[in-house]
């Protein structure tokens, strides 16, 4: 019981770091990418596998292009954030959902997913 109050504090600290975009620590970035992968694969969250082939994911769809060599293709992280946040803004005809605009994913979650994308 005595240790209990400590835990939420830790989580808050971590979340704050994520929010602030503290990607400087490699360990932290690594865990954010792992979290991002989970969010990307989760059917109730990103569910990106519905449309994209992604390394490590089962039963991928083919509606969108395979997500690979992302870092080479999009060296600028902001572009990736923009794609995941609101791809219809870049391409009005796209079938890719506007994850940020329609609040399917939070800004934090999108940031974690972009970290994951950059490992592909």
């Amino acid at each position, binding site marked *: 019981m005595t240790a209990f109050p400590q835990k939420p504090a830790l989580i808050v600290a971590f979340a704050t770091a994520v929010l602030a975009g503290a990607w400087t620590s490699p360990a932290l970035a690594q865990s954010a990418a792992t979290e991002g992968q989970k969010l990307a694969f989760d059917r109730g969250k990103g569910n990106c596998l*519905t449309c994209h082939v992604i390394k490590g994911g089962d*039963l*991928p*769809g083919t*509606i969108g292009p395979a997500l690979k060599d992302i870092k080479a293709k999009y060296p600028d992280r902001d572009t990736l954030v923009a794609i995941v946040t609101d791809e219809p803004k870049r391409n009005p*005809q796209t*079938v890719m959902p506007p994850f940020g605009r*329609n609040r399917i994913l939070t800004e934090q979650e999108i940031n974690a997913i972009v970290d994951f994308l950059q490992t592909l």
Partner: protein
Amino acid sequence: MKRRGSVLIGSAFVALAALAFAAPRVVAADKIDPATEAKAFRNYFTAKFPKVKLDDFVNGPYSMNADMRKQWVEKEEFPPYEFAVDAGKEMFAKPFKNGKTYADCFPNGGVGIRQNYPHFDAKEGKVVTLELALNRCREANGEAPYSYVKDEMASLTAYMAFTSRGKPFDIRIPDDPRALEAYENGKRYFYTRRGQLNFSCASCHVQSPGERIRAEILAPALGILNAMPIYRSEWNGMGTISRRFVTCNSQTRAVPLEPQSDEYRDLEYFLSYVSNGLPIAGPGARP
């Protein structure tokens, strides 16, 4: 590269359709020509899939994927919808409590007429689908209506489709502004994006047919109703057109409408009309 190209063509078509809606009403009123639109609709799919024979589009995902087709052809040796056809036939023959039968409600005793539904009812001023006509027949004869989505309704429509196999869809839009409006309304519903995921029916069935969505292969919108009702392993049973509309809406986190609501009736009218000339293939089996 190939995909990009096809998405672009798809977009062009969607954009075209969108333009048609955006046109000022006065102009649109005398410009809408469903026959020309149906031809353009068909041409879009035949150009996108030059190797698929026109009549084969009614086989949905199987027309798009050779592996799936092979599994399906094997399965058709013992069609999983056979029980529904048999049950439907029996139901059709069995009199209601008042002694009448379904045959009394339909032209030609209900045999070989699937291709004429939905039709526009001038008296009501609305679209009447086969599922709706069946329940109206029951109610007119003092029987309780069936659920629109499965079981009895699927059996009845399975039997009626079975007796109509091979007959080309022959949907009419009479010279009546209300009929044209119903067609337009169905088209609008089909191309409008909705729900949190921002999908329209066209996102999947016009822009992405043949693509995998997880393990499933998306059916093309051309001929998409010809094989209904369908047996789906995933449903562990039969489903009607109503069931498929509701399922597609809810799977995309959009709020589904009531089966046989005006919008769904209009949607079915539009989708059937643009598939005119393609043969009835129901009931169908899907993975």
